[in-house]
């Protein structure tokens, strides 16, 4: 009796098992890509000082800096494409581990499809002719062409969706007057220290005080506050300011590499921060002796509007950097 039912039972079992497996796959796929955007982006970007290693995999300090930058950019609401574009503009296209599906790198993506389609048509071509075979061949060619076209179109729309150079972050960071402003000009440094000692997590006053110390040339005291400020809960604007001040203070305090990292992090948050760009250029040139890096920062600064004093100060640094680059260029050129 059971023998008659066995095929049916077996079919039912297979259908049920296949259903569970397919449900698991569909359910997993529906949960979408992992929400860890930082993880995903750091796997798509190459660590600039390494050879072909992803930012996520490299233990180098510059990879760690970029990872932190990306974390801030994600927190500031940048889209994946904006973050990728930002690093492409900074390091060139070789920073991307997956070349874009546009322009000269489209070939890369299309060629495997062409090989597969061509090979499939060749395999089908070995079969003896017949009406169905011909139909198969045309279907394969059509599928291959459609897949290639889809890739091209997807690449083209991906390029179209790219925003123009201006990133929306400016509008996030720039609006003034969102934070409560108080007139601190009559308050002495000692009074501010006392207030901060009572309310350690007040970031605005801490940063104002650090600025005063920096203006007065008291780097050690400034650093004492900026070091705390970068870990305090803050708005993006305050955090960016804390990074900039801490970077500048660290550089003055004899840690130019670290300082430059913080300044770059500040610039990543607010690409139009004139002070941070200027400080970075100064640190790169005067402390790290890298006129090329300094020039990059100055070039970005030149695209921004500045008042007369700023133009003058920046102009002086620019002249010095250009002079250094010129001598470096001639000495390199004349070297045997």
């Amino acid at each position: 009796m059971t023998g008659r039912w066995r095929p049916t039972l077996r079919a039912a079992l297979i259908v049920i098992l296949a259903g569970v497996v397919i449900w698991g796959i569909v359910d997993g796929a529906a949960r979408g890509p992992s929400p860890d955007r930082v993880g995903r982006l750091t796997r798509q970007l190459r660590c600039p000082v390494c050879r072909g290693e992803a930012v996520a995999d490299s233990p180098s300090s510059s990879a760690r800096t970029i990872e932190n930058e990306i974390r801030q950019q994600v927190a500031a609401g940048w889209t994946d494409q904006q973050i990728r574009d930002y690093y492409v503009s900074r390091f060139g296209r070789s920073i991307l581990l997956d070349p874009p599906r546009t322009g000269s790198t489209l070939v890369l993506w299309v060629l495997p499809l062409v090989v597969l389609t061509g090979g499939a048509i060749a395999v089908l071509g070995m079969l003896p002719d017949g009406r169905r075979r011909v139909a198969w061949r045309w279907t394969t060619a059509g599928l291959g062409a459609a897949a290639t076209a889809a890739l091209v179109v997807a690449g083209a729309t991906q390029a179209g969706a790219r925003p123009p150079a201006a990133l929306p972050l400016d509008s996030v960071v720039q609006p003034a007057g969102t934070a409560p402003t108080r007139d601190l000009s009559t308050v002495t440094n000692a009074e501010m220290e006392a207030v901060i000692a009572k309310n350690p997590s007040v970031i605005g006053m801490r940063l104002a005080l650090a600025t005063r110390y920096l203006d007065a040339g008291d780097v050690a005291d400034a650093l004492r506050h900026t070091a705390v400020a970068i870990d305090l809960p803050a708005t993006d604007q305050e955090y960016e300011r804390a990074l900039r001040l801490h970077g500048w203070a660290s550089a003055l305090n004899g840690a130019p590499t670290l300082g430059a990292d913080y300044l770059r992090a500040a610039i990543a948050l607010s690409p139009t921060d004139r002070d941070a760009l200027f400080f970075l250029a100064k640190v790169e040139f005067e402390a790290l002796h890298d006129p090329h890096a300094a020039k990059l920062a100055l070039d970005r600064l030149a695209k921004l509007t500045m008042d007369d004093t700023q133009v003058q100060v920046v102009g002086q640094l620019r002249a010095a950097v250009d002079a250094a680059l010129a001598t470096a260029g001639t000495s390199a050129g004349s070297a045997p």
Partner: protein
Amino acid sequence: MTVLAGRVLLGLALLGAACGAWGGVERDERRRMRLLRSGPLLAVSGLLGAFALLEVALFTDNFGVQFVATHHSRSTGALFTFTSAWAGLEGSLLLWATFIAGYLVVVSRTVTVRDRQACTATAVMSGIATFFVGLVLFVAPTFAATPGHVADGFGANPLLQDNLLMAVHPPLLYLGYVGMLVPYAFAVAALIHRERGPRWVLRTQRWAVVAWGFLTAGIVIGGWWSYEVLGWGGYWAWDPVENASFLPWLVATAYLHSAVMQARRGMLPAWSVGLVVSTFLFTLLGTFLARSGVIASVHAFSGSSLGPVLLVFLLIVASATGWLFVSRLGDVITGPRLERLGSREGLFLLNNLLLGTFAAVVAVGTIYPIVHEAISGERLTVGRPFFDVFAVWITLALMLVMLAGVVAPYRRATWSALWSAQRTAVTMGLAVSAALVLVAGLRAPYVIAVVAISTSIVTAALVELWRAAQARLDERGRRVAVGAALRARPGFWGGQLAHVGLAVAAIGIAASSNLAQRSTVTLAPGQTTVASGFTVTYERPTAVTTPSYVARGARITLQRGGTVRTLGPQLRTYPNQREALTSPAVWTRWQGDDAYVAILALDDASVTMHVSRYPWVWLVWAGGLTMAAGAAAGLVLRAWRRRTDEAMLAALGGTEEPVEVLA
């Protein structure tokens, strides 16, 4: 003195190899045989002598030899002194040339006067050997004198001298690369003599399997080394030099399958020749990519003037073989037609199509950036995201074809026949996968799919074996029946073991990449935190000074479940390297997840580490080595069969030679 002796030995080897090559065009039969027999023998003697001399120079700290001065130091231990012979370009090439001569001498023992194919093949191999001996003698001289007096050498690249895996990875890989020369040489010989038919395939299939096994083992061990030593947590980076070893592997795998088709059905002879030729050309391309410094990669520890010479040789070999192939196409292209796609031949073709596409993906992704930079001046990177997209889908498709192909009959396979043969296996695969979905809550789509397909493949192999043994079962019992079944189709069962290995490795790859967890933690001494499913405690900093490096490390205890393990990841500073290298600590847990700890930064106050969890990584090595074991199993089974056949013939009083029949 040593330098002179080394050069003399290499000069003798060059002479021997050149004699072998000359033997191919010598008309006088007696002289031809003498050249073909003694030339290779002289070549291998000279090369073995030179290699031994290099080892002696290394062990006696003879820094007057430049290679010793740059790749060895007095503080290096005995084992790594031995392996530093291939820790640099010149020594690697010497080992490479020695392996070529080794294969050459074995092949040349089988040559007989009337065997034109084998004579020409030996000459072709000798010609290639001549080139490589010339390289180590003139272009990248292994034996060159050190200018001035050197008290102590630099020592090898630190990455190459702290792990046994790295000691065996290069020789295995070279044995694989070089072994592909044998089928290539016989294919070229068959083309030259316009020989039709699969004779060259039959007589070199064993060589192809040997080379493929070595190549597989070499690649797997390289990945294992990368995981244990490099500290980024992976085993395959799609690095151009890794790709350069993967390309010949893919094409050789395609060839092993097309060779069966050609041997059994005489189909697609031109395609097999094309695959063998491309395999060999890809090994040359790999040598060029790895050794010329044309690409910046972690393997580029040896830039030299060798690049142009290798490139010219590659172009000459490629165009000569290409011309030969095209001019003989009319002779080799004939063969029976494919009757239908639904047949074992059809599935073999699909396998070749998919492997070919895979090779195209890898080749394009590796070479395009170089070409692009040469043309436009702009650098490009093609990395994991690009390769992974294609690799995942092609591999899934390949495994499905594998599942069907194993049981598909030649000429005509119907769906119902395939289904009834694989029903049990598929049910098993679905059941295991469904159980993981329901019980373990697995939701990673790729892992679910791979587990289902892989389990089916493994079960299918077992079911096939059971059926084959059942058909042979008689009063002598089950073990005899299994032995008889295995002996009946040595190549097939070797292939099955390789398939099982691939299925196991696929599970490891899918699980370790899709279910991995990684966290970055910063801890002060005494602090504890939970990261990636482990309870991590930073006990204290450590410091070790060994003769070859200074290590600062962290003593970490990890806890998961009831088990506690103490690990010691380090940052090592080597005298000949500026930056400290992170040396990861791995806690391999056979029952599942690896813990992988790599230090990012370490100071007095704290340590910053990547703490990662990689499930089932060891399946990758186990599966990969099982694949290589499949190659060995095929050869062992074949030898076993020959012995039993001979015994049977002797018992019957027959004198006939046993006939080679392929699976």
